[in-house]
């Protein structure tokens, strides 16, 4: 384990090694495999049987593509599966056909794609257990702005993780000083698949539960879950443990949802995922100005990268966020590279090696 420090913080061990051995096999067999066609389900089930727990627990995604090899994405690489669940070379791997992909799509959407037009327009659906299925296929345009996926060709099933405790390393940095702690506005920055949402979720849980040992009183937490990923609501119920004081606006656009939550639910903290444009950034700024702590994430390699983008540069420069947490996959997903305020005159402090 690296003993390297960044921003005065010891680099955290990989999330994969931190996470409790939540039985991924049982969760997949219960929540995901029944929704896949028989051939795909059989191959994955056999792979789960064959694999030892460290390998099995490293599973992050299942990628199913019409006519292409069935692929399991692990935290350290990916493997292709043969029809009997053995790891195979791409040319020997099991390739789901059109019928299997169609059947899988029908089951994933509960045979109700008409009821999921909003989800299909955004390109993903949420499953029981909070697993998220990204979709690819042929887009149909209804107008210059409205596109809907028509023929589905592929799925990316992202396995939801319930990882408690990943925020422990950064918790003291995201709280104010003084006798009674309160959350500070924090922006979590990382490239994709580095654990931003997992970190957001765990911080939301800690704020919602409160912690007497460090004088952190419980907070009312409002979540604007535009992509249904933080709470992963299924049938209106969060599929992740977010503590007892959480209100979720599911699939609500951030600019609308943040102000709606502030007006209607009086939260102490507003949590939202992936600030991705000018309207999102302005909504964050407005919420900060309303006296609410914002806990948000953004896609970027580091804060320098974030500061180069027009929509977010002023958000960083104006100081709306008091704390920045930079994550990477250097030692596995969730490696904390930095946690603290914007450093002055030391740009290298942000950069990853």
């Amino acid at each position, binding site marked *: 384990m690296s003993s390297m420090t960044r921003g005065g913080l010891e680099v955290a061990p990989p999330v994969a090694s931190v996470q409790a051995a939540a039985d991924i096999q049982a969760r997949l067999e219960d929540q995901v495999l029944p929704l896949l066609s028989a051939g795909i389900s059989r191959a994955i089930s056999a792979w789960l049987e064959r694999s030892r727990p460290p390998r099995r627990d490293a599973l992050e995604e299942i990628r199913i593509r019409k006519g292409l090899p069935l692929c399991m994405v692990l935290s350290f690489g990916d493997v292709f599966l043969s029809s009997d669940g053995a790891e195979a070379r791409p040319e020997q791997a099991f390739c789901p056909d059109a019928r299997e992909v169609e059947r899988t799509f*029908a089951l994933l959407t509960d*045979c*109700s794609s008409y*009821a999921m037009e909003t989800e299909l327009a955004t390109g993903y659906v949420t499953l029981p257990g909070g697993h998220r299925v990204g979709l690819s296929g042929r887009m149909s345009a209804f107008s210059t702005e409205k596109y809907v996926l028509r023929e589905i060709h592929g799925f990316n099933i992202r396995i939801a993780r319930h990882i408690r405790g990943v925020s422990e390393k950064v918790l003291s940095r995201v709280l104010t000083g003084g006798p009674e702690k309160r959350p500070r506005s924090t922006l979590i920055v990382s490239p994709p698949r580095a654990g931003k949402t997992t970190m957001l979720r765990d911080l939301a849980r800690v704020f919602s539960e409160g912690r007497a040992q460090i004088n952190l009183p419980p907070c009312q937490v409002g979540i604007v879950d535009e992509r249904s990923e933080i709470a992963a609501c299924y049938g209106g119920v969060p599929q992740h443990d977010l503590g007892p004081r959480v209100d979720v606006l599911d699939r609500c656009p951030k600019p609308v949802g943040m102000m709606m939550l502030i007006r209607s639910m009086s939260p102490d903290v507003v949590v939202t995922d992936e600030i991705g444009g000018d309207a999102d950034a302005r909504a964050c700024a407005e919420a900060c100005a309303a006296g609410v702590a914002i806990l948000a994430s953004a896609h970027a390699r580091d804060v320098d990268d974030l500061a180069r983008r027009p929509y977010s540069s002023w958000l960083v420069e104006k100081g709306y966020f008091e704390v920045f947490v930079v994550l990477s996959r250097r030692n596995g997903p969730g490696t904390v590279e930095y946690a603290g305020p914007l450093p002055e005159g030391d740009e290298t402090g942000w950069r990853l090696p």
Partner: protein
Amino acid sequence: MKILGSVLILISGALWGITGSSRLNARCRELERLERALLHLESEISYGLTPLPRALMVSGQVAGGQIGQVLSKASELVGRGGGMVPSEALEDALSQAAAALIGPETRGVILEMASSLGTSGRMEQMALIEATRERVRSLRESAAADAARYGKLYRYLGVLGAVALVLLLT
């Protein structure tokens, strides 16, 4: 004894005729129920955006009768809960239904709809169900005409056949 036998033959003939006639009427009623169920299914899908398993269950409850049982059974089998696609679920449910009440033409119409049920957007589903309802209406009208024409025939045939048999035997 002879009189008792003749009475029994007459009663049996009349019952045969009534049964045949009521079978035609029952088929007509099932088609009416199917039409009602499709109307309800359409509104569940278009206004409620109700997931298909629940939409089928509610439509089945509204319809009642043999069709209601078919839809309720299909609702248990379809989707995430039962692991079947609509065509498989409805085929399975129809295989357990009485063939006399839901004829091969009606089954064909239901299964044709099932092959596209739940696979497209709201507007396409509404058009699909509307088209199916039109076909069911046409089947029902034809069944009603059959019931009116052949219902009487069955009843007369039953009684007259029994009378002829009694006369032959005596």
